[in-house]
């Protein structure tokens, strides 16, 4: 039972990060290869706080979320202001992630590449609570005026700009929100596994996050979140096939792009499906 609980908790933590990326990639239409970096920032900020200064977990979680959100401005302000091509932006944010990893590996406060052993503070209550809170906040946020503006930008940036939407500010807002969610996920992850290492937050993780969002469907919250759960829980059940997990992700991305680019629930939410049946 303990094992199953752990798997479910891990899946919930991942769902929060995927939710973050879904806001950015699914709703604002920008492609990121570096969101694991924000998870890493959240994990390390909270981890360092609880490890060195015994900060209560609530404050560590808040600090991790805030740090990830703020750090997204560092990369977001220059790149989004320059309105880079979407693939240039993806590479720029990948570079940000790599630079961050090198920094984490060489700082003494993070204990370098050997990793940081933090205490196990985030119980199921924290994780499920944060997940529900993030789902609610994200849903309402995307239903607000901002959500509509994001979708307008995704569908046609030029037309959106002509209609008077400030592309730079909206994209930056979207990036900050998604990074903050990833940061919260990181803080929970660190205090769930009780051990963090810089290599946990590299391109492989970014790819997994992206694969979940694409497979779940662009423009949907419930799709990516469901897929994130499956993607975390399924490999755990098929431990013996662990080596083939990443090839399968890769293949899945290609197949989805060829046969079903809208993903599992593209532009729809889970409740919509039930409504249609009635």
């Amino acid at each position, binding site marked *: 039972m303990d094992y199953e609980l752990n798997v479910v908790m891990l899946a919930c933590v991942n769902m929060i990060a995927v939710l973050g990326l879904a806001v950015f990639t699914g709703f604002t*239409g*920008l*492609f990121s*290869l570096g969101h694991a970096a924000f998870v890493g920032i959240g994990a390390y900020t909270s981890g360092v706080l609880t490890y060195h200064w015994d900060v209560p977990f609530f404050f560590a979680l808040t600090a991790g979320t805030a740090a990830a959100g703020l750090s997204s401005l560092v*990369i977001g302000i*220059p*790149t989004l*202001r*320059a*309105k*880079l*091509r*979407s*693939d*240039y*932006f*993806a*590479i*720029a944010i*990948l*570079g*940000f992630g*790599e*630079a961050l990893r*090198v*920094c984490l590996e*060489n700082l003494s406060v993070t204990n370098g590449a050997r990793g940081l052993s933090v205490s196990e503070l985030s119980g199921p209550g924290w994780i499920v609570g944060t997940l529900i809170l993030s789902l609610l906040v994200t849903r309402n946020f995307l239903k607000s005026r901002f959500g509509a503006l994001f979708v307008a930008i995704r569908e046609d*940036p030029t037309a959106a700009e002509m209609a008077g939407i400030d592309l730079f500010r909206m994209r930056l807002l979207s990036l900050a929100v998604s990074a903050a969610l990833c940061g919260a996920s990181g803080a929970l992850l660190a205090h769930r596994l009780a051990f963090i290492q810089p290599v946990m937050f590299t391109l492989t993780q970014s*790819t997994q996050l*992206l*694969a979940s969002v*694409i497979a779940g469907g662009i423009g949907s919250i419930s799709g990516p979140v469901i897929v994130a759960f499956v993607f975390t829980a399924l490999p755990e059940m098929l431990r013996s096939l662990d*080596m*083939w997990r*990443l*090839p399968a*992700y*890769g*293949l*899945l*991305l*290609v197949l989805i*792009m*060829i046969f079903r*680019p809208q993903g599992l629930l593209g532009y729809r939410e889970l409740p919509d499906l039930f409504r249609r049946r009635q």
Partner: protein
Amino acid sequence: MQTLVTGLSVGGIYSLMAVGYSLIFSILSFSNFAHGAVIMLGAYIGLALATRLHWGLGLVVAGSVVGAGIISVFNERVAYAALRRRRAPSLFLMISAMGCSVFLENTVYATIGSRFFAFPEFFRREVVSLWGSSLSLLDLFAFTVSVGAIFALHLFITKTKTGIAIRAGVNDMTMCSLMGVNTDRLISIVFFLAGAFAGVAGVFLGIKYLVYPTMGWVTNKAYIAAVIGGLGSLPGALAGGLILGVLETLVSTYLSSVLRDVFSFTMLIALLIWLPNGLMGRETEEKI
């Protein structure tokens, strides 16, 4: 001086890889993230030919060129052709490319394993001295071949009929196909060329360092090199590779080798912001 020579020899290989990126970018305007995986497979093919069949260097390079070229064409047929025909946005092509890269890299990881392999020694560990600085035979050879190959490609693109068709395709694919060019074949040729360059780069990287599943990672550097020179420009790719090689060597010699990669990525971001078309790139229209 020594730094400059070392930098140029690394830069030569960066250029080889950057050319592949640039070629594909120029014709399909998306960044082929699977290029690194093709380079890695090229290195493995070269390695198999060298260790199992005991072929000489020339044959190994030739075999790897053909092998990587075919893989690259196959990759295009499977993963991009359907999207291309549907005129899917370049974001989809990029995701597909990312998927290919993850798939190929980790399949090698799962089948061949994460072991590091070394090529047999093709070059005596002899150094040539050049203007008072030393240079290994391998570096000299790799540099000469790189520059030679890029020059040959330049001739091919500018002087032959197929080359003219490629340049026409770069300019306007629809127009090009209306003029009676078989664009599917044209794109296959471009992917074969890119794969061929990836094969050469893979073998040289493998000889200079080692062969392992994630060696394609170095292509991030090549990507930076291609961006410096301007994506889609061949002379730009050559220049970008050499500039990046020299700058990186300077940073790791005089500052710190840890900072080298941070420096490259910072430079990339700075460059993308102030000079998004690179040194010799053409005006890019799509802006997000």
